């Protein structure tokens, strides 16, 4: 029996260390690289990169090797994860590939890993995104003395933790990954980010998440004190250690977890860190941040809030649904109002996460399956969008919509990719996100017509913010300053191409993923429906209001 998950965690972790070591090995030429850093800093935008590249090429061969190694590690991880996914039994509803070892016996802490369908697809998502992000970011930090190798090391470290956080089957272990993840991202934004505000954004991100995490810590401790163990399998279920706790306590613990997850998710009104973070991030960072990290929040709601404290769910259904609806509409409208593409995409994500949380707390099978699927699809769609925006930024050094226009004429492929990603974002049938969005909506309607109808507004607004951004950046007469804009090169095509392909494939044939997700959802959805009389009653009265 091969410890798949452990390998999938260890591989990138080792990779991170190796790459860091490689990047440290100073080649003499690295100093020359340093010297023309100044001159690089002088010019801005594409010409900088082109100007620096030759110097770099000769210079930090070490960095180049480090990056290749990093890419190799990420591919290896992907291979492992895929191999694991192929062995996944879509029939079973429990955790698979389980492993359990004592870690800190005094606190009943284990190194326990295992995945169900939902965790599996999310791990797949992260495994797919990482290599692509690396490809996209290959030339991004060449004006640095480490040639960006440090950035790659951070990505690998982050990947190890991402896999870990989804694979964890021990609340403590989950928390450890949940918090530790912040650090690499913090450096990815603060050190390798863009713009003057990056340090501020990084701090905002870290403090926001940390505050949530610390509140969660209290709840985590509460779980241990109440349940006497951290092992997820022992805590959950009708016979679980937490089955007996009284509802009031359950509500408090639920809240403790939920706040942290809502901040991560990012849910209105604790979303304000995201736009700043996204704006200050390199696109690669943004992809991983919004594409995967934020999913930890929604995943946590599904896996921990719901499954650990079923008795508390009914108390939260309506508040959370309300917040979700606000997020959907609010995020969409704010996206319309943005002038910076990174911020814009960030706000669209706020809206999309609203759909996910709505789906989770609508407590119907379609809605939750849709939500789970949505997590993955959103990762692909937003990932692609961020990458394409990133290609623009790497060319012009700006994400301001006003700086662009008529790009379609000079860079049709780029524009095409941009459009496809955008259409996926607005939930066009035939592209992956539609399926999940549709499932969430029909599921939500069964829960509450009003909620579903409000949510549909988000769909309409989505068309507006996507197409308007497209119109302002890609169409119209091409201004003089953009006439030299280069279309996507091979590397960039390979970075974004797979995502677009996946969007189409899963848009036309999502069933495999749904098959993996479904058993897990059947498990979680029982929780809500089992004891959410309040929700049912509410539904009924909502129906009456219809």
């Amino acid at each position, binding site marked *: 029996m091969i410890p798949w998950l452990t390998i999938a965690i260890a591989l990138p972790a080792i990779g991170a260390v190796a790459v860091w070591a490689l990047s440290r090995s100073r080649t003499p030429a690295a100093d020359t690289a340093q010297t023309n850093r100044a001159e690089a800093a002088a010019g801005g935008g594409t010409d900088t990169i082109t100007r620096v590249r030759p110097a770099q090429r000769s210079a930090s061969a070490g960095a180049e090797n480090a990056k290749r190694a990093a890419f190799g590690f990420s591919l290896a991880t992907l291979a492992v994860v895929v191999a694991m996914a192929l062995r996944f039994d879509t029939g079973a509803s429990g955790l698979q590939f389980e492993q359990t070892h004592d870690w800190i016996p005094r606190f009943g802490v284990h190194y326990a890993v295992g995945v169900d369908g939902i965790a599996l697809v999310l791990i797949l998502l992260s495994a797919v995104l990482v290599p692509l992000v690396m490809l996209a970011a290959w030339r991004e930090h060449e004006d640095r003395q480490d040639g960006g190798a440090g950035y790659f090391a951070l990505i690998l470290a982050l990947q190890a933790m991402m896999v870990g956080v989804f694979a964890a089957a021990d609340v403590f272990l989950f928390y450890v990954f949940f918090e530790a993840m912040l650090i690499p991202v913090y450096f990815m934004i603060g050190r390798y980010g863009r713009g003057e505000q990056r340090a501020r954004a990084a701090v905002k991100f870290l403090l926001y998440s940390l505050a949530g995490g610390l509140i969660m810590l209290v709840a985590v401790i509460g779980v241990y004190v109440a349940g006497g163990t951290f092992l997820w399998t022992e805590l959950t279920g009708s016979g679980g250690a937490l089955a007996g706790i009284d509802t009031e306590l359950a509500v408090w613990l639920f809240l403790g977890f939920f706040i942290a997850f809502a901040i991560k998710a990012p849910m209105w*009104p604790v979303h304000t860190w995201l736009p700043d973070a996204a704006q200050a991030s390199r696109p690669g960072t943004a992809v991983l941040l919004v594409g995967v990290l934020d999913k930890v929040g929604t995943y946590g709601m599904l896996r921990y809030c719901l499954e650990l404290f079923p008795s508390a769910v009914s108390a939260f259904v309506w508040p959370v649904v309300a917040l979700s609806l606000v997020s959907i509409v609010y995020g969409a409208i704010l996206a319309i109002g943005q002038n910076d593409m990174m911020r814009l995409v960030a706000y669209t994500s706020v809206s999309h996460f609203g759909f996910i949380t709505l789906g989770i707390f609508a407590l119907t099978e379609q809605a939750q399956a849709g939500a789970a699927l949505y997590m993955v699809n959103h990762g692909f769609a937003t990932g692609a969008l961020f990458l394409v925006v990133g290609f623009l930024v790497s060319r012009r050094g700006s994400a301001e919509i006003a700086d662009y226009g008529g790009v379609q004429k000079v860079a049709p492929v780029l524009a095409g990719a941009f459009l496809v990603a955008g*259409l996926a974002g607005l939930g066009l049938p*035939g592209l992956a996100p539609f399926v999940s969005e549709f499932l969430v909506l*029909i599921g939500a309607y069964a829960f509450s017509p009003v909620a579903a109808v409000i949510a549909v507004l988000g769909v309409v607004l989505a068309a507006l913010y996507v197409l308007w951004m497209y119109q302002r950046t890609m*169409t119209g007469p091409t201004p003089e300053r953009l006439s030299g804009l280069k279309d996507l090169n091979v590397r960039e095509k390979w970075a974004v191409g797979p995502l677009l392909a996946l969007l189409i494939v899963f848009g036309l*044939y999502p*069933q495999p993923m749904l098959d993996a997700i479904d058993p897990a959802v059947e498990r979680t959805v029982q929780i809500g429906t089992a004891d959410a009389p309040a929700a049912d009653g509410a539904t009924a009265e909502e129906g009456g209001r219809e």
Partner: protein
Amino acid sequence: MAVVTHHAYLAAEPAAATAAGSPVLSFAWLLFALPLAGAAILLLGGRRTDKWGHLLGTLLPVASFVLAVLILFDLLGRAGDARSVSVPVYEWFTVGGFSAGVDLLVDPLSISFVLLITFVGSLIHVYSIGYMAEDPGRRRFFAYLNLFVAAMLVLVLADNFVLLFLGWEGVGLASYLLIGFWQYKPSAATAAKKAFLINRVGDLGLLVAMMIMFAVLGAISFSEVFAAVPGAGDGILLAVGLLLLLGACGKSAQLPLQAWLLDAMEGPTPVSALIHAATMVTAGVYLIVRAGPIFEAAPVAQTAVVTVGAATMLAGGIIASAKDDIKKSLAGSTMSQIGMMVLAAGLGPVGYVAAIAHLITHGFFKAGLFLGAGSVMHAMNEGVDMRRYGGLAPKMPITFATFGVGYLAIIGVPLLSGWWTKESIISATFGVGGTTGLVLGSAVVLGALLTAFYMSRMVFMTFLGEPRWEEGVHPHESPANMTVPMVLLAIGSLALGAFLMLGDRFATFLAPATGAEVHHFDVAHAFTAPYGLAALVVLVLGVAVAWALYLRKPVVETAPKGNLVTVAASRELYGNEINEGLVMRPGQVLTKALVVIEDKVVDAAVNGLGAGVRDSSSGLGRAQTGFARSYALTMLFGAVIVAATLAVRL
């Protein structure tokens, strides 16, 4: 009664079996697969395919047409109620009780659409080879056209609402891409976005309708939904009906979602011909007919449909009468004609055949008219202002001839295609009887009057009278690959109506699909009956007025100020102003407001917290004076606290 026949034809089991038995039908998926492949190849192939791309792009729709014909014969080879065959392709997505499959429904209704789409589509592809010859983006253009054809075929072949929605949005996308084909023109880009957005509003209706279907009727496939209709509450059915109507309004540019269609004329003319005249805009009619069982069970919804149809018919006619831009005028006409079909479809089974028949003939002559207009524009250096046309007949005979045929057909000159179908609509409306019948009927007649007027106006201003050309314009006839399609369409415009209507061929063919009891189209009666006569009268009247206004005295080159009515008409009855006032402006205000709120309230709250901590920090920090004695004092103060907290327990 009608409902029952629906179940009969929609019971999928035997049909599926027959599908398995028939090799042709089991390849039905190729119908849309072929053009889709074309689109994929052309888009991914890149410049490599520039040389032969347009040829491939033309070939594939033709192939689909051939396949469609084969399928037609396969159907004709079956008993009437075995003619609706559902062809499952694969399972799209299934969760718990919900399942959406890529299942096709091949029945007389869908196949007649398929034939229309593939035939007209193919012709327009051919036409475009010439029309877009000079355009650097021709390959992309053909890719988009193929994409459209594929999506449209999915739309009409779908066996459930979700798949239909896929096609529905697909054609929306294609239309978006094609309207905005000349993206460097801001007007084009804006028009494209506008079209997509307004359609989205319609789609909202369709989405919610599907939610209700699944939540209440428990399914989204046609057969199951319609089977559940009798058991459903009136409120539900009414809601679903109205929501479907909303969807239809978006796609078919019916009031109140009509505003996008005229702007859509920014697209290349073949696009206007194919998408915004012949096929896509008729999807709304298709939806209403297809969802017949629901509407028939919800009379109020039907009334709504009829009302919308009538209103749009008249509005379109008025707009068309005032526009000087030839394409916009034609677009107005399209609105009006589709309004007529919607009206007919709203009448229930009686109207279905008439509606669909008119839809098909309209597809021919309107496409022909658009292509003609395109050819004229070619000749006039892409000028669209009819006031700068005139006297083109001798210069471009073929165009004039084909355009003329289309013109005669649309205004309903007896025995041409338009006449048959329009007559059947008129008869159907009057057939309703009572005041309703009278009102609706006279509305249609009025519509016919308008049609006669604005179409005559168009022909007079364009082909007859004195030339009013701008300098440097040297009109010339278009090349063969443009004229041939026009000719073919013209032939259709001449004969198709008779072919369909004589001996009620089409009615009998369609009957099992629409559940309409065939009622005989009596040619003689069409002339003798009062409404028949009325139609002829208004026809003459319209032409006469147009003659008086636009042929007898010369046309002024710049539009006169005109009176309230004409101004309103030329401003498209203030449709855009209404949208702006009701939606856009408030939306912009809301957006600005929220952006401010986000910055000054939501985010400020967090930042404020930080600032608060910092302030209180420097405040408390002042206690650290550096004076040892003040520290001692603090300690004493601490002693007090200790004492107090200890005393608590006393």
